[in-house]
């Protein structure tokens, strides 16, 4: 059964504010799809509509083939939603939150308890099972909210900013967990504006800008546009940073002022990846001591920043 997400022409406004103008995308089962966009681009509104909480003004949505507007109960059985705002019932313990949520998904009491214990283990909160959910730290609440979204073993996961507030270790654990959940054939849609965070986990990306999804052609175009590469040379205290810059410029046959600097690194723009390969080859051939050679910004960030500038905009500001 295909349990992906399909959205076509989805639109929603709040009074005069057009939160979501035109969203069309698909998210495939077994893959993690990132929803990328700046603050206020309509990511959360879109998530709310997919989660069957908000009606779109127009457009079609399908969660695993179920229309969340026509059949909210059917869609809710399939989807797990983790909101960006973390509410916790005052004075209920972490375990009670999960047991109560499981019961709201029609699990019998005993099954709900077993499920809650399993999930606490899964998100590494077992030691805090008896603490009131209200006193948990932000990261712990975040993990509790993720466990809550998983309570009924949903086939589709809608995660709104799941990694914000997590420490590096929890973030790695989240990444591993998401990869595992996706490998089990689930569809995962995850939104974030921390792009480096998304980069580590997503298979596909959907870009949102001012309430619109950006067409894949534009994304592809952005990915091939001019971008900067970070070049770090072996530090040589006897020569200044300027000397390294001149060496690189000479090896690449460029002017020194074409090459930017970022702290101890140099930023060299290349038109595309083939250009970068040729550049690296030239640097190594010229005997320049290259320690690191990598895109200055991640793929997502590059595409995102590029889209931000708008169609026809020049390069990335990095």
């Amino acid at each position, binding site marked *: 059964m295909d349990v992906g997400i399909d959205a076509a022409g989805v639109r929603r406004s*709040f*009074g005069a504010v057009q939160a979501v103008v035109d969203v069309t995308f698909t998210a495939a089962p077994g893959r993690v799809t990132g929803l990328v966009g700046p603050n206020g681009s309509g990511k*959360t509104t879109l998530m*709310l*509509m997919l*989660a*069957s*909480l*908000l*009606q779109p003004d127009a457009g079609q949505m399908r969660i695993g083939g179920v229309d*969340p*507007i026509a059949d*909210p*109960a059917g869609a*809710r*059985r399939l*989807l797990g*939603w983790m*909101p*960006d*705002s*973390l*509410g*916790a*019932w*005052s*004075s*209920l313990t972490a375990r*009670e939150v999960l047991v*109560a*949520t499981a*019961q*709201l*998904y*029609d699990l019998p009491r005993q099954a709900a308890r077993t499920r809650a214990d399993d999930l606490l283990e899964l998100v590494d909160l077992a030691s805090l099972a008896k603490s009131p959910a209200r006193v948990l730290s932000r990261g712990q609440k975040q993990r509790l*909210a993720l466990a*809550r979204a998983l309570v*009924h073993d949903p086939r589709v996961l809608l995660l709104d900013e799941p990694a914000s507030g997590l420490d590096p270790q929890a973030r790695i654990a989240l990444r591993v967990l998401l990869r595992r959940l996706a490998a089990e054939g689930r569809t995962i849609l995850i939104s974030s504006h921390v792009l480096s965070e998304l980069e580590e986990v997503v298979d596909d990306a959907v870009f949102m800008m001012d309430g619109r999804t950006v067409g894949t052609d534009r994304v592809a175009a952005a990915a091939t546009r001019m971008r900067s590469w970070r070049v770090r040379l072996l530090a040589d205290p006897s020569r200044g940073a300027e000397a390294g810059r001149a060496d690189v410029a000479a090896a690449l046959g460029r002017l020194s002022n074409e090459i930017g600097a970022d702290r101890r690194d140099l930023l060299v723009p290349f038109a595309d990846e083939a250009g970068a390969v040729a550049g690296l080859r030239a640097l190594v051939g010229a005997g320049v001591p290259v320690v690191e050679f990598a895109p200055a910004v991640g793929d997502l960030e590059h595409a995102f920043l590029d889209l931000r500038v708008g169609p026809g905009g020049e390069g990335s500001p990095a």
Partner: protein
Amino acid sequence: MNLHRLGTVIGIELRQRVRSVGWYVLLGVFFVILMAVLALSFASFALASGGNEWFFSLVIMLVLLLVLLVSPTLSGSALNGDRDAATLAPVQVTLVTTAEIVIGKFLAAWISGLAFLVVAAPFLVVATAAGGLNPGVILASLGILVLEVGVVAAIGVGFSAVVARPIFSVASTYLVIAALSIGTLIAFGLGGLAVRSEQVSISRDVDWNALPAGCDPGAVNQPSQCPTYDELPCIENRYTSEVPRFDRVWWILAANPFVILADATPPTYVDGYPRDLFSQIAFSVRLAQKVPETETRFDGCAAPDVPSYETPEEQLDGTVPSWFVGLFVQLLIAAGLLTWGIARTRTPAKRLPPGTRIA
């Protein structure tokens, strides 16, 4: 309506309440006030023998007043408070239906309001024993108290679903309670006066002008040519005046919770006179149902009648108990607000109250 899910919603609400300190503080303050009233009442009613039934009805009235004052705080922020705390949407996204959420919250608020009646119960028992009242009175009044707590809980939960901000929904609940408790009194008074009808007073009396000078039919030895009372001509006078029609607006007063409480308890009359506060209030309210006469007659020429005297109990013949009319009006308000609340909380939401986020 799935009972398992409904029970879960109620459980979540009640568990939060019994674990909050404020809840016990509220119950404690409630207890202390009742204690003080009981002590004062015993001290004051000890002056005279009897009168204890008045004391009992006073205590029940006070319990009703306190419960009306406390209940909105228990229910008035049920849904918008959850929305503010971002705990509503995660519940809405589960299989629980909107009706189950709203009704679950209403039942939870009702149950927590009943805790105040449990605290008040010993006082009611003591007051009944001291008043020597029949158990029917205490049962009927307790029944009405339970229903009133439910009505306020429903109004509060309904407003919390309709109004965006918790303070305004709590305030709205208080306003409705004020409208029912005081507003009905004002509306009844003004309404009765505004809806007037004409009353014709016809009085016949001896035409004193026809009496020859020097004659006095009342005198012991009046001249024989003077006419007696019977021989004097009679003249008829008509006055029209306007009388208030309280019989057309009595149902407004019937919706008053205090009137409902008073009217629903079995009345006790001693020698035709109301014996306690409840009976007194019920008597006054039911009297308002009587249609004023459109014509009053007084005949001074005929032998004067001894005006027939009716005791208060007899005057109520032909009136109906009003409490179920009032309760019906209240239940209508409560059910209407709950239904509206369910409609406004329904997801997927079409429109949101201004200034709110769904999550």
